[in-house]
């Protein structure tokens, strides 16, 4: 913590140096120290559920229902994981990865093309198309699930992973985000490509794509994480044990054996650790996606 206080001071000094200010050095107020302490306590509360999932998944049957909570599994066991993998948990995980990867790939392709068109192509009806996209984003996604279920049944896609993938790709956020990124493409580059006689497709691949690459990265990771956790859509569309996702699998364990906390925590760990690792690896992209995707004013 003293590190942070030093950092605050350093930042203040740097700012003052930058603006050439010579007024007094920023004092660390007692308020800032107290606030930081409170924030650290709250942060511990935010980490605790994850800690409880991981440690819980290694606890033996007595420890999980002990009257005095076992804060750390002194005698760790992999029994919970063995019982988890006796069920089709690997299959569920595989389904989830396929679902997320497919949604991600299709979203990135369609949204980067659509976003570019909305930002740079002056086609008739552009304003209208864009406002419909923005309005649709503000509507509750889950309201459309009833007709969507009927539509998927009609297309014979109900109970397949495609029933979850297709609506995920259709969600307008991606197009909106990629429009924001495409706005930054300099008009002069596109003009130069046109004068050189480059066709639309070539311009897109050789000029546009390299510029919006960071945006595609942000969208990719955002879509992957959102799809991983879109429980409601998965719940409605997928019923058979073979097509369940890991989220549905955990929910199933929970409803069948509500007091077998060890097994449920093993499932929760399997469902959350991979996505947390992906998030931590790509969090820079992710943060950028969130900030760029904010509709301002």
């Amino acid at each position: 913590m003293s590190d942070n206080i030093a950092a605050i001071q350093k930042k203040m000094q740097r700012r003052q140096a930058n603006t050439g200010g010579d007024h007094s050095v920023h004092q660390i107020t007692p308020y800032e120290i107290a606030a930081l302490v409170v924030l650290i306590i709250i942060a511990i509360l935010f980490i605790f559920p994850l800690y409880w999932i991981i440690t819980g998944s290694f606890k033996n049957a007595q420890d999980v229902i002990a009257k005095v909570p076992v804060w750390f599994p002194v005698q760790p066991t992999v029994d919970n994981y063995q019982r988890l993998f006796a069920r089709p948990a690997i299959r569920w995980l595989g389904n989830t990865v396929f679902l997320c990867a497919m949604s991600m790939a299709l979203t990135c392709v369609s949204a980067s093309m659509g976003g570019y068109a909305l930002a740079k192509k002056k086609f008739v009806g552009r304003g209208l198309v864009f406002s419909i996209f923005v309005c649709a984003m503000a509507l509750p996604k889950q309201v459309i699930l009833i007709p969507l279920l009927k539509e998927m049944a009609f297309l014979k896609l109900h109970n397949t992973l495609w029933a979850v993938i297709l609506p995920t790709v259709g969600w307008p956020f991606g197009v909106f985000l990629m429009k924001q990124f495409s706005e930054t493409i300099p008009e002069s580059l596109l003009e130069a490509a046109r004068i050189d006689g480059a066709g639309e497709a070539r311009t897109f691949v050789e000029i546009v794509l390299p510029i919006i690459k960071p945006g595609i990265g942000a969208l990719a990771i955002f879509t992957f994480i959102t799809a991983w956790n879109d429980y409601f859509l998965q719940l409605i569309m997928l019923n058979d044990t073979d097509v369940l996702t890991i989220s549905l699998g955990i929910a199933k364990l929970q409803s069948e054996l509500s007091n077998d906390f060890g097994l449920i925590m093993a499932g929760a760990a399997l469902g959350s650790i991979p996505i947390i690792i992906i998030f931590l690896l790509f969090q820079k992209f992710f943060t950028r996606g969130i900030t760029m995707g904010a509709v301002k004013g």
Partner: protein
Amino acid sequence: MQKTARLPRQSVAMKQSRRRENIAGYLFMAPSLLFFLGFVIFPMVMCLVYSFTDYTMTSFSFAGFDNYKRMFQDAIFGKALWNTIILVLISVPVTCFFSLWAASIISKLHDRTTSFFRCVFYLPVVTGSVAVTVVWKWIFNRYYGVLNYLCMNLGLISRNMNWLGDASTALGCIITILLTTSVGQPIVLYVSALNNVDQSLVEAASVDGATNLQTFWRIKWPQIMPTTLYILVITTINSFQCFALIQLLTSGGPNHATETIMYYIYYNAFKLQSYGYGSSMGIILALIIAAFSALQFKVAKTDNG
């Protein structure tokens, strides 16, 4: 002469390039438009259509405003609406205020520490609603939960509470979990907004002897207003749609104490197969959310002068 001869040719060329622009525009739009129209707009329109029918497993005929009339006489719907509004009225201000407060502190820290805190507060979102919910269910458990143990030891309660099974505490539990899963995104947005505040204005204010609080309200607050507005809207939408928590923790119980509109829609449409009635509640929910968003925009605009 020359001029008038060139003009039409130019406009032909312009027409051609405009046509090219149109074709290219729609070709680039085609994939996303196809998915969007097919799997978002079409179902939305159908939802409106269903809401005027008595669509169930066995029947499908036009029913006029019957569903809407039924809704206003449905006591459980009223309860669900009431609970949803309480949930929104508590979670939206708390989320916004806490995120702004946390962001104002962590944005001043060392870059690494800032991103550490940002990750920590985002963790419950990434962990996923199901994993988060099942672990909370264990924490709240009447016999084996950590919460009862801690509260007993601190002397806050005299006997084990059935947190999720008691009508007076269940909604509070739901709101607590909802809060932990909703502050992540607002904090990220506020940190970036606060870092983008014009530093020269802040410096000028402190030279003029403004206190930190004055600097905040007079300089920073107006500049981060668009972010606040966006956060209000997304948090409202998310709170209105709170579903996984309810379905996995309480299924709307005990005695509808945690029934929300979203869960009631699910229950009617997918448990009772009343697609028509479920759709009409969906339309009402969409209208309420639209009204709330519009109101927030209006209030924020007048606030801004």
